[in-house]
């Protein structure tokens, strides 16, 4: 065999190592076929189209059966937790929104809830702000589940669900853009409320979008629910029962697919979730198909909540969206302009032309931020992937002393070994897709 820099074989103490990144597969299979060894260790990823992001899987195979599966993570570690310690409490939102990039609103809300707990203002958050938070979270749940279906289907070879899923996701992102000025990483939820009000005319657009999405969800449903190929790839695959979920700390759709109706929105309501009518969707199959059905069912529940939010927003038109305490609230009314979100012109006119005190206040709270009483707090929300918990510590200063995210992706990815070992290598893809990890959240 001539030397191929992309597919060379080397000898190590562990055995013969084959690097395959291109080249002729038949050469390789002839070469491997010549060895007596049945056991092969395959390194899959981190740059692999089927591993759901920069996830590296180390698989030990006997033929096509996986005997051991291990994850290698950290390829997307960006030190977000460390960075928050060098910025003000409000600026922290801009960082944490980038963790689980498919569920930015959940990261922001959980973080803000923990800061509000420390400030002891969690009961003073205006109702309209809470309604907006709930609405944005549920919209975000839809867009996040859509990526799960789309990429999950794609990884199993079904391309059409991706087109439908991303169409719905696009609808949601358009709403996000209209409301916050940004489609992703909005930094829209702020300690004390939300950055700016939802324009009243957007409410009717959101209602229409709900109707349209309800109709469109059927496309993916008819395509996948009961589809024999999809079911063969997902049914009884990636099995993890309730006991396994409990000891591994698994929450979210995986836990609910194991039959446990645990949803923080119901069991420990926050942001006023106790005032909404919706059901907790469960399945009892504890497999990848069950998780898929749970997510599918949650879409309709999210739409129900969003519609109730729209009713509430109409009732609460003109109500404040930020806490009344001027020592915490962002000083200006933000507005969405042609270049994104910014200070409203009205406010600039006031501080530059009329009130010196307003200017000083604006300057101080924007550059220095507000102080948060010393102590620690933990706040959790039900994100699309499970419990997103934020442990925040303050030393009494204007910046966090420590922010730690309990990311459901990070925790749930531990189940890979339990789900994949003993199964076939092709089912590893289905199992990992059913965990729906977002590597930005895993590695932070």
């Amino acid at each position, binding site marked *: 065999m001539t030397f191929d820099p992309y597919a060379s074989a080397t000898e190590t103490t562990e055995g013969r190592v084959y690097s395959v990144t291109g080249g002729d597969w038949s050469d390789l299979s002839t070469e491997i076929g010549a060895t007596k060894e049945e056991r092969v260790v395959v390194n899959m990823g981190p740059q692999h189209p089927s591993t759901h992001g920069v996830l590296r899987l180390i698989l030990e195979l006997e033929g096509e059966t996986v005997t051991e599966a291990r994850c290698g993570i950290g390829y997307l570690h960006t030190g977000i937790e460390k960075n928050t310690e060098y910025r003000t409490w409000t600026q922290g939102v801009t960082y944490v929104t980038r963790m689980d990039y498919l569920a930015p609103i959940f990261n922001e809300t959980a973080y803000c809830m923990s800061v509000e707990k420390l400030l002891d203002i969690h009961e003073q958050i205006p109702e309209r702000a809470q309604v907006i938070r709930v609405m944005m979270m549920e919209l975000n749940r839809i867009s996040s589940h859509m990526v799960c279906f789309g990429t999950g289907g794609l990884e199993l070879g079904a391309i059409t669900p991706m087109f439908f899923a991303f169409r719905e996701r696009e609808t949601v992102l358009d709403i996000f853009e209209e409301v916050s000025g940004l489609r992703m990483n909005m930094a829209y939820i702020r300690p004390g409320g939300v950055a700016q009000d939802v324009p009243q005319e957007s409410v009717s657009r959101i209602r229409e979008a709900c109707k349209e999405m309800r109709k469109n969800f059927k496309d993916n449903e008819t395509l996948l629910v009961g589809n024999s190929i999809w079911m063969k790839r997902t049914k009884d695959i990636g099995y993890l029962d309730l006991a396994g979920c409990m000891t591994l700390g698994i929450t979210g759709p995986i836990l609910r697919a194991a039959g446990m109706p*645990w949803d923080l929105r119901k*069991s420990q309501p926050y942001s006023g979730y106790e005032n909404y009518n919706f059901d907790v969707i469960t399945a009892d199959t504890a497999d990848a198909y069950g998780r898929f059905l749970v997510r599918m069912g949650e879409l309709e529940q999210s739409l129900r909540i969003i519609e109730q939010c729209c009713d509430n927003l109409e009732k609460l038109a003109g109500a404040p969206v930020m806490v009344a305490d001027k020592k915490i609230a962002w000083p200006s009314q933000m507005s969405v302009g042609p270049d994104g979100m910014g200070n409203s012109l009205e406010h600039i006119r006031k501080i530059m032309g009329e009130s010196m005190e307003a200017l000083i206040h604006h300057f101080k709270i924007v550059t*220095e931020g507000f102080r948060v009483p010393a102590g620690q707090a*933990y706040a959790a929300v039900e994100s699309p992937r499970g419990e997103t918990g934020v442990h925040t510590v303050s*030393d009494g200063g204007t910046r966090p002393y420590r922010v730690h995210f*309990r990311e459901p992706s990070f925790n749930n990815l531990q189940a890979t070994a339990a789900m994949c070992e003993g199964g076939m290598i092709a089912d590893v893809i289905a199992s990992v897709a059913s965990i729906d990890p977002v590597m930005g959240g895993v590695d932070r």
Partner: protein
Amino acid sequence: MTHDDGMFGVQGTGDTSGFGGLAKTGASTGSSERPYGSYFDELTDDLERAYPQFSEAIEAVVVYRGELTLHVKREKLEEVARNLRDNPKLQFEMCLGVSGVHYPDQVGRELHMVYPLLSMTHNRRVRLEVSVPDADPHIPSLVEVWAGNNWHEREAFDMFGIIFDGHLGLTRILMPDDWVGHPQRKDYPLGGIPIEFQGATFPAPSERRSYQ
């Protein structure tokens, strides 16, 4: 580790706003007085009944912002954890990970580990906190009690250098295996490493320029 002034040459609190004196010392860990309120009295009573060495093992019971924190001595951590998990009246079947905090000022108890526990049966939460000195950063591993702590403890080791005794594969998880230092400690600067481009090296952010 070499002394580093941090980003932009800021010293002390690193308050970049120019308004000095904004940082306060950490909250004291004094015990709260009974009644604790909510379900906290019942929970501590139940634990006391289930675990006779309660007064010995629990250094402080802190109720703050509607949350209960039990400060546990590290020698007793595993026993307390097992009691919290197995007693039918407590039944904290889930541990939501491990979060470390580094307090360089608290001499003799610089490193804290925080375990948020959740009981789905009783719909309750409690937090365990363990503190150990920097010079002896050993904490018993709770992977035997809650298998899901595996990665969380590896992360705490990676970020703080805590050694979890009894953990079967305590290796770095987020940082590369050959990384030097533990990034979440307060004496570790932000940035801190030179950025390598092909053919040139840029100094670390903390060494580029000093605004003083």
